[in-house]
Every structure is written in structure tokens, then in C-alpha cells.
């Protein structure tokens, strides 16, 4: 078996963590290396950086961030945000990222999934799917940070990206994201049961119970967490202890 993974997600803009850890003992505010080291020491199973830079210069600094983090942090690192081409993927992997996550570009140019998986292996291609409920057991895929509807149905799209060679799916419920009212369990379960690749659940966690639910009922292989961790509502150890008591395998 593999342990359920707890994955902190850090937003990075122009090389600095924004919405990062809210507490005192970080030496330099917004330093991605410090944040990643902190979570690695806390026993995070992986780390995700989401690049929200709006400019090309900002994006270029991400490559440097990845290099610096990979020199001192020895857990898997995923980078997402603004990746459009094989060259972008290669630049990040060569700098020390283990996986890249694509969302908008995957919809616009599905060949990128296929070519990326062929060239670098499925294990490093994550397709991020942002989905919004569109009826009973139906969800529509949105791109461009959840702003643009695509007309794609989420479960069908998930099956397609698996076929194209994606190694994992990072699934976010647009409806639940930021509410702290719990995950969209039906969405997670529907996607997870229709693909054979791992699904990382995101969007809506407010309590420890929510996380156990999305793992047990939603069949998620991992949970991605941001503000809950950054604001120190829970520590990673607290989460893992709780899940363990629910009979879920975790790496303590």
C-alpha cells in the first residue's frame, strides 16, 4: 500500500510566496526555500508551488526558485501555473521539479499531455482539473483560474487525460474552494472511480473530518491543502494522527 499524502500548496508570485505560513519564526518573509523546508520538516509528503506571476519575468524567476528549493528540500516537488510548452516543462524538470501540473494548457492543447508524458514519463505530468457542478452527477471543467467554462464534463475529461498519459489528477471543486465547508465528495469519487491514476483532492477542507471523508468516501489518494496549513489551523502531524485513528495509512 501507499500512504495517503498530505501536500501543502504554496502560491508564488515573482519568486516570493504569497499567502504563506502565518507565523513568526521564518527568517525571511515569503522565501519559498524557507517555506518548503518548514513543511518538509513537518513531514509533508510532497510540496506544490503554484506560480501566479502575471509576467514572463515573474515566471522566469520560478525556475530559480525550483533550483534553490531542490538543493535543500528532499521531498517531491510539483510546479504548476502558466506552463504552456514542452520547453516550459523541461526547464522546470531540469531545475529540480519532479512533476509539473498543467490546467489551461491541457485543455487548449491536449497534445502537451501526450508529448510531455512520452518525453518525460507519465509520473511527472499532473493534469489539474477545476470543476464546477452543472447538475446531478455532472461537473463542468473550467480553465484560466476558474474563469472560463470549457463545455467539457469533468469525469469524461479525467478519463481523456489519463488516456493521453497523465500520471495524476489534481481535482479542485470550484464550488467548495475557499468555503471550508468540506470537499465535493461526489465529484472526487466520480473522478477517482473512473480513472486508474491517483487523484489529489483540493478545495473545501475546513475540518479534519472533511479530509477523512474525501479519502474514505471520495477515494482520494492525496489531499492538497493551503490556508488551513498556512494559518496553522492544523499541523501536518495533527492531520496525520487524526487520519491514522480513522484507519487510514499515513507516513508519520
Amino acid at each position, binding site marked *: *500500500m*501507499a*500512504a*495517503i*499524502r498530505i501536500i501543502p500548496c504554496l502560491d508564488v508570485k515573482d519568486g516570493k510566496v504569497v499567502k504563506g505560513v502565518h507565523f513568526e519564526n521564518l527568517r525571511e518573509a515569503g522565501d519559498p526555500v524557507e517555506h518548503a523546508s518548514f513543511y*518538509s520538516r513537518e*513531514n509533508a*509528503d510532497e510540496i506544490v508551488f503554484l506560480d501566479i506571476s502575471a509576467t514572463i519575468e515573474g515566471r522566469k524567476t520560478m525556475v530559480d526558485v525550483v*533550483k534553490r528549493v*531542490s*538543493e*535543500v528540500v*528532499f*521531498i*517531491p516537488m510539483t510546479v504548476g501555473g502558466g506552463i504552456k510548452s514542452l520547453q516550459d516543462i523541461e526547464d522546470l*524538470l*531540469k*531545475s*529540480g*521539479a*519532479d512533476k509539473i501540473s498543467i490546467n489551461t494548457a491541457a485543455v487548449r492543447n491536449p497534445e502537451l499531455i501526450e508529448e510531455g508524458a*512520452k*518525453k*518525460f*514519463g*507519465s*509520473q*511527472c505530468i499532473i493534469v489539474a482539473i477545476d470543476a464546477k457542478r452543472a447538475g446531478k452527477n455532472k461537473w463542468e471543467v473550467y480553465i484560466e483560474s476558474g474563469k472560463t467554462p470549457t463545455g467539457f464534463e469533468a469525469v469524461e475529461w479525467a478519463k481523456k487525460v489519463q488516456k493521453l498519459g497523465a*500520471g*495524476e489528477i489534481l481535482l479542485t471543486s470550484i464550488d467548495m474552494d475557499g468555503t471550508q465547508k468540506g470537499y465535493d465528495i461526489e465529484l472526487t469519487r466520480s473522478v477517482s472511480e473512473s480513472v*486508474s*491514476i*491517483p487523484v489529489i483532492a483540493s478545495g473545501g477542507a475546513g475540518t479534519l473530518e472533511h479530509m477523512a471523508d474525501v479519502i474514505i468516501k471520495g*477515494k482520494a*489518494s*492525496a489531499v492538497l491543502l493551503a490556508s488551513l496549513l498556512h494559518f496553522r489551523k492544523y499541523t501536518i502531524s495533527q492531520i496525520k494522527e487524526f487520519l491514522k485513528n480513522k484507519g487510514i495509512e499515513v*507516513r508519520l
Partner: protein
Amino acid sequence: MVGIINYGAGNIRSVCSSIIACGKKVFLIERGSDIKKSDIIVLPGVGAFDDGMKGLSLKGIIGPLVEEIDKGKPFLGICLGFQMLFSHSEEGDSKGLGIIKGEVKRFKLKNKKLKVPHMGWSRVKLSEPDNPLFFNIGDNNYFYFAHSYYVQPDDISVVAGTTEYGIEFASFIKKDNIVGVQFHPEKSGELGIKFLKNFLEGIWLQ
């Protein structure tokens, strides 16, 4: 110096960083003639089997590598670099290095709940609990895996550790001067670094 084979694929940067973190000097092996200059050889790897073998072949590394390993130079193969030690893989048509007899097979799991790729942290159960490569680590601890294929050596006496994922597969082998791991020590946090240190310090060779 620790020579890390750069065959064009994969994330060798993390492997270099993790070995540097163990206090060792590293250099990249870019061609066959570099192999001799290394005291220890590491073959990292992510990606596809055929691409990996093709990369090694194009750089003229296969012959010198097999020769140096035969001579007894300490060698570590990681993930795809581990799988390439074998004769053949279901993933591709290329022949492997054939240094260890056996096959690389794709997970065909009956348990539908288990996802492929096997991605994440799983336990390594040691054949001998006091294996010097696991000094200060111990039995049944978690390491990071990311793979869809696993190795099946003909001679099971080389298996030093196994991992359970639907089936029990060889996740750690040792044969003379050759060590191979299916997990990524460079991505397995503190325990991964301990494993690399144990490997690099070479007590296991005695």
C-alpha cells in the same frame, strides 16, 4: 568523486543535490570515458525504458559502464536506473544492460482500488533487518515511489528488500558491488539521505 550518469532524461539535479548534502563531491558522466574517473557510479532515472537505454547508447556509456561494474566499482541504480540493470522490460523493445538477470514488468493489479502509477510513500521490508545500507533507518520504513513497472530478478537471493503494492515486489536489491532501488532516496526526506550516506560511505561493501 561520485559520477552521476547524465543520459539526457530525468531529474538528475535532485540526485546531485542529495549526494552533495551527504558531503560528497559529484560530477556528471557525459560520455563513456568519464566512467573511469568516478569512484562511485550513480545511474538515476525517471522516464521511459527505451529512451533511457537509447540515451546511454548514444553517449557511448553502455560498454564502459558494464566493464566498470564488472570490475567491482560501487554502483547505485535508482528507479529507471535500477530497472535498466535488467535484461528486458515490458515497457519497451530495447535490451537492458543485462547485468542482473530478470525482467521488468508492468503492474497488473487485481485490486482496482490500487492506482497505477504507484505514486507515493510505501514501506520497504528488509530481507535482513541489519542490512548495513539501512543502518540508522531500520526495517519497514517509508520511501517515495513513482513507477508503473517493477523488477523481477531470476535469482531471488539478490533481493534485499520488498514493498507491497497489490503484489510484493523487489524494491531494493544488492548483488556484490551493485545496489538498486525502485524508490527515490533523493526524494525520501531524511531517511532517503541516510540511505545515500550509507551507500556512499561503503560499509556495505565489506
